[in-house]
């Protein structure tokens, strides 16, 4: 091969590289065989205590839900996971059709008309919703109102993404009693979460009306697992629905890769970022699928693109599609009901313990906040050390007013014995 190229050595191929930086001696650990790498990785994995090792009541945006074996069976097919982005549709119909089906199911679940083929996660999908809303409003409205009960990390990501755009992001500092009071003619969108970060659910119809009355778009961040039971945001009049799809087949994976989904009204489709699969025909008239409306995207429009997004969460979206199809109409409802009833059982039992109380009596889905008699960190340490239980999320991290409040999450993965053990452990804590 060297002779064909006309050089004497591989080193000669690098003559354009400045000599003083060429061939650095990299200080990396010595190479391992496959067997040794496995040992090292098993050792590292074994050094963690996981949600599989005992009862876990942590949620707050990443959830333990059951993943049927069919999901990973599909994901492990090399034809799916070693495929490239389906830019060559003739040899990518598998991915394209699966994404078309994914888009359809996301629309049905959220009650919206169009869905893209995914964003990185719930947080970045929320940030992209803000950018879409600004563009839909023709850049004339520069204020974004966000509820304090949108996931704190999502709110942080919205601020990071928009720091160069000259926007004002308000509403989540706790100063206003009601986000509706902040809406005005200069507001592009209102972002709320449903169920909210504290797990609470409410009818969003009035909020949608109030927003629309002043031309403000309603962006709803939602949990697709909850939508197996609850009215979809589209039914309340939401304009953009985004969220984290991790609960549908992605597993916990220490925070990623997860799945951002994004759905909206058909009239806004050209302002929606990200890849989009559309149906068409081949030259013999057979149904087929292609990536479409790519004129919105960075590789065509460059500096005029609606976003810079390129790589998305293809395989995780496939997992969600298989999950939604596997559980289907009955299973999705069943999972949601299991979560609902178990979470309520857990809440009722917890509130019976003296020293624990609710923050309000609003309806909730699978998470609830409780005021605790001791600091949350102390309680969690006790739960783990004495009971092997991974406790709840410390709300004081994000909400100064909710110091000593814990957010507990209960799903279909928590059998009654786990919940009873948690209650017994919390009783000991309260003493």
């Amino acid at each position, binding site marked *: 091969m060297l002779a064909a190229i006309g050089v004497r050595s591989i080193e000669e191929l690098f003559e354009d590289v400045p000599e003083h930086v060429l061939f650095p001696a990299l200080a990396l650990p010595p190479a391992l065989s496959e067997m040794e790498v496995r040992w090292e990785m098993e050792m590292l994995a074994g050094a963690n205590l996981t949600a599989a090792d005992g009862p876990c009541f942590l949620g707050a945006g990443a959830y333990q839900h*059951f993943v049927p074996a069919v999901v990973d069976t599909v994901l492990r097919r090399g034809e799916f996971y070693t495929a490239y982005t389906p830019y060559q549709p003739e040899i990518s119909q598998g991915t394209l059709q699966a994404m078309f089906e994914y888009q359809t199911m996301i629309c049905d679940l959220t009650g919206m008309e169009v869905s893209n083929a995914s964003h990185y996660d719930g947080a970045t999908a929320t940030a992209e919703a803000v950018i879409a809303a600004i563009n839909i409003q023709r850049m004339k409205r520069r204020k974004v109102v966000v509820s304090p009960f949108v996931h704190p990390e999502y709110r942080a990501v919205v601020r990071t*993404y928009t720091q160069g755009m000259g926007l004002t992001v308000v509403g989540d500092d706790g100063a206003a009693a009601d986000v509706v009071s902040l809406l005005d003619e200069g507001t592009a969108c209102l972002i709320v979460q449903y169920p909210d970060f504290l797990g609470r659910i409410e009818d969003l119809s009035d909020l949608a009306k109030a927003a629309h009355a002043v031309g403000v778009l309603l962006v709803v961040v939602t949990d697709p697992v909850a939508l197996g039971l609850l009215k979809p945001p589209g039914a309340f009049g939401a304009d953009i629905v985004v969220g984290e799809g991790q609960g549908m087949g992605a597993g916990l994976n220490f925070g990623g890769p997860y799945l951002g989904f994004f759905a909206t009204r058909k009239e806004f489709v050209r302002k929606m970022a990200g890849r989009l699969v559309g149906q068409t025909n081949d030259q013999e008239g057979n149904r087929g699928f292609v990536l479409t409306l790519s004129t919105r995207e960075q*590789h065509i*429009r460059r500096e005029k693109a609606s976003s810079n997004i390129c*790589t998305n969460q293809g395989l995780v979206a496939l997992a969600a599609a298989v999950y939604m199809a596997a559980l289907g109409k009955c299973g999705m409802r069943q999972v949601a009901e299991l979560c609902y009833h178990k979470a309520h059982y857990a809440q009722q039992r917890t509130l019976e313990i003296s020293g624990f109380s609710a923050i309000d009596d609003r309806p909730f889905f699978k998470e609830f906040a409780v005021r605790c008699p001791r600091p949350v960190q102390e309680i969690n340490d006790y739960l783990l050390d004495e009971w092997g239980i991974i406790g709840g999320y410390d709300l004081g991290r994000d909400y100064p007013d909710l110091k000593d409040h814990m957010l507990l999450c209960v799903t279909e993965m928590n059998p009654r014995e786990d919940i009873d053990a948690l209650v017994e452990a919390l009783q000991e804590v309260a003493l």
Partner: protein
Amino acid sequence: MTQPLIFEISRPGRCAAVLPALDVPPTELPDTLVRDDLPLPEVSEADLVRHYTRLSQKNYAVDIGYYPLGSCTMKYNPKINEEMARLPGFARLHPYQDAYIVQGALFLMYHLQEFLKEIGGFAAVSLQPAAGAHGELTGVLMMRAYHLDRGEDGRDVILVPDSAHGTNPATTTMSGLRVVEIPSDARGNVDMAALKAACEEHGDRLVGMMLTNPNTLGLFDENVGEIAELVHGVGGLLYGDGANMNALLGIARPGDLGFDVLHYNLHKTFSAPHGGGGPGSGPVGASERLAEFLPAPVVAVDPEESDEESLFYTFVDPLKSIGRVKAFYGHFGVMVRAYAYIRMLGAEGLRRVAEYAVLNANYLKERVKDTYPVPYDRICMHEFVCEGRLAGAPDVHALDVSKRLIDYGFHPPTNYFPLIVPEALMIEPTETESKDTLDAFADALLRIAEEARTEPDLLHEAPYTAPVRRLDEVRAAKDLILRWEPD
């Protein structure tokens, strides 16, 4: 054969999942908030598995054959990495668990940061960005924040070469900054005269420059040192698009070349699979002066909790962080794969990756360049760009050549990019292909060139052997059917 949609094989009452019975007393449902209808498919497990298996068979993939996709680095994905990412000790970790019960995961992240620092020649690395474009956004926001921190709020210009990936200008706009395009010279490098003029014109407004090196022509820009000096000379910073890092592993470190910030693509260079479009992972490396602007959090050693026997790892927020760019810490599952890859290769193995990638590209270029003109013909790095317009076949386009390659069992190369080459075919063989594969691919390209002259319609109509014929993309964009509707 057309595979029906999952909705078309749905039958009332079927379900592919069996869930446990409710084992607690039920609570009344919030009636006004309960949905009436949930129009999801109803299929059995067997039907479901067959559906997706059949769909999978309509895909091309690295496990099936060779992808010469320029700038995408479609190398083979080692199978051990897939298994490691699925170890329950990784896969079932909740991101909010206390640091002291996730030390194995934090060890892995910390050391992956260290490996990437060493490979790229940077002072610090954040693993948070989700993909290459996300890493770009992170890096450009960091450059912007750096200037603002120094009280230089008039800087709003980013220089972008005309050969750049589309993500570069798109990222600039998203960051609230302005693109000034710099042309390429006759050798495919950045035109130095144009760069000098731009640096003079925009000097005190310059945030920095985004540069891919090797660039999208697959050429190493020999003037990179001078480019860095020019940009730094007017107070700007140099951003590195790491999409082409596969050419530099163990060859040169971007940090040593003068780059201030760079994103890595773990799904290109470090062998994580592309997943049919993702997930990727786009860690960002930063020089000393940009390190404190990295997104929060990064993994660090906690000196308080560490002792001589063992180090304790924890998350910390860099001092002047631009904030977080996504929820949690990044694509941990992809990090596990990249970590395993780097551990199996070590320093020598990584250098061999780049050497063989570059050797393969040059060999392939020599094999085809007499037929497919190479406009910038010099020793290339890991990829090269040739023209898909052929002597004696005026009506044949790069697209036709690409589609015909499908019939020969290959994935087409990247088409019509970079924009500065007409009818571009951008070819990146990667290091994981053998000479046999490269020869078979070159033979196919040469035979197609012959067909283009003798039977051009054969190319216009291709492919013939794919699961579908050429698809009507114009109609897709016009009719806009983006979801299935029941009849």
